[in-house]
């Protein structure tokens, strides 16, 4: 951004403030959804889906705008693609462990 004009930087700043407000609103929605989930005694799965969906939207806003991922160089995406693959394997490990037939032998 150091090569950008002051006007361009000011435009970015407006965007950051917009994202900041959106994050605060989404935090309030997360808490409200959590309370509703308890009050209405919704199923655990519904609670997890709602809570994590909002967290993913918030995470995308932070990574996309604050970390500039939307305008980043291709190499960063390659790094993140590798990371996402291994992260997915890591999350699958519990399922693989539980379905391991050797443990029941």
């Amino acid at each position, binding site marked *: 951004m150091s090569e950008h004009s002051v006007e361009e930087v000011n435009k970015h700043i407006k965007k*950051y403030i917009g994202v900041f407000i959106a994050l605060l609103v989404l935090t309030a929605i*997360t808490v409200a959804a*959590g309370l509703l989930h308890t009050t209405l005694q919704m199923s655990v799965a519904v609670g997890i889906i709602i*809570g994590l969906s909002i967290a993913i939207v918030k995470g995308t806003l932070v990574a996309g705008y604050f*970390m500039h991922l939307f305008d980043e160089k291709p190499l960063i995406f390659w790094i*993140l693609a590798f990371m996402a693959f291994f*992260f997915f394997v890591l999350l699958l490990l519990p399922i693989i462990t539980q379905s391991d037939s050797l443990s029941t032998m």
Partner: protein
Amino acid sequence: MDIPYTVSARKDTGLYNGKLGLWLFLASEVMLFGGLFSALVLIRVGNAVWPPAGTPELNVALATFNTAVLITSSVTAILSWASLAKKDLGGFKKYMGITIVCGFIFLMAKSFEYYGKLSHGVVPSTNVFMGVYYTMTFLHVLHVIGGLAVMIYLWGPGSKMWHTNPGRFSNRIECTGLYWHFVDLVWIFLFPVLYLL
């Protein structure tokens, strides 16, 4: 001899070295926290009742406050970098100062929360949920402390570099901001997983 590519981008990567290194570090951090989230999934699937019976309620109001504080610190961190892009060192100092204060407020609130639990004998060995809670939140706290140490240095003595090598200093602030946003990102997922679900 000067370290190459601290200001300008390498032709082959399109990035300056510090930024590439920081993103590789963040990828390893995702795996670190990912391992813990994976363990949490395994433990949770293995427990019919979650949190286990007898687990004290977590302070949702305080955690919500802390979420707002971290989000605020994230936006002020990026505003400090934007100030440097406008060649405004005073603006950088102001916004970085607010970020540091927010980091300390987060730590104070977290200490208050820990004290409330520990003084009532609620320790990591109380049950599996509290073990997960203390492990994940304390690892996050360590990351906050690490980020604060770097930001205090760059706000104070480290800011002298602005007068001798502004491009490099600006890049340092960008990398510090990336790390701080990651710390915020981790909390965004920890908050609903531990406090609300």
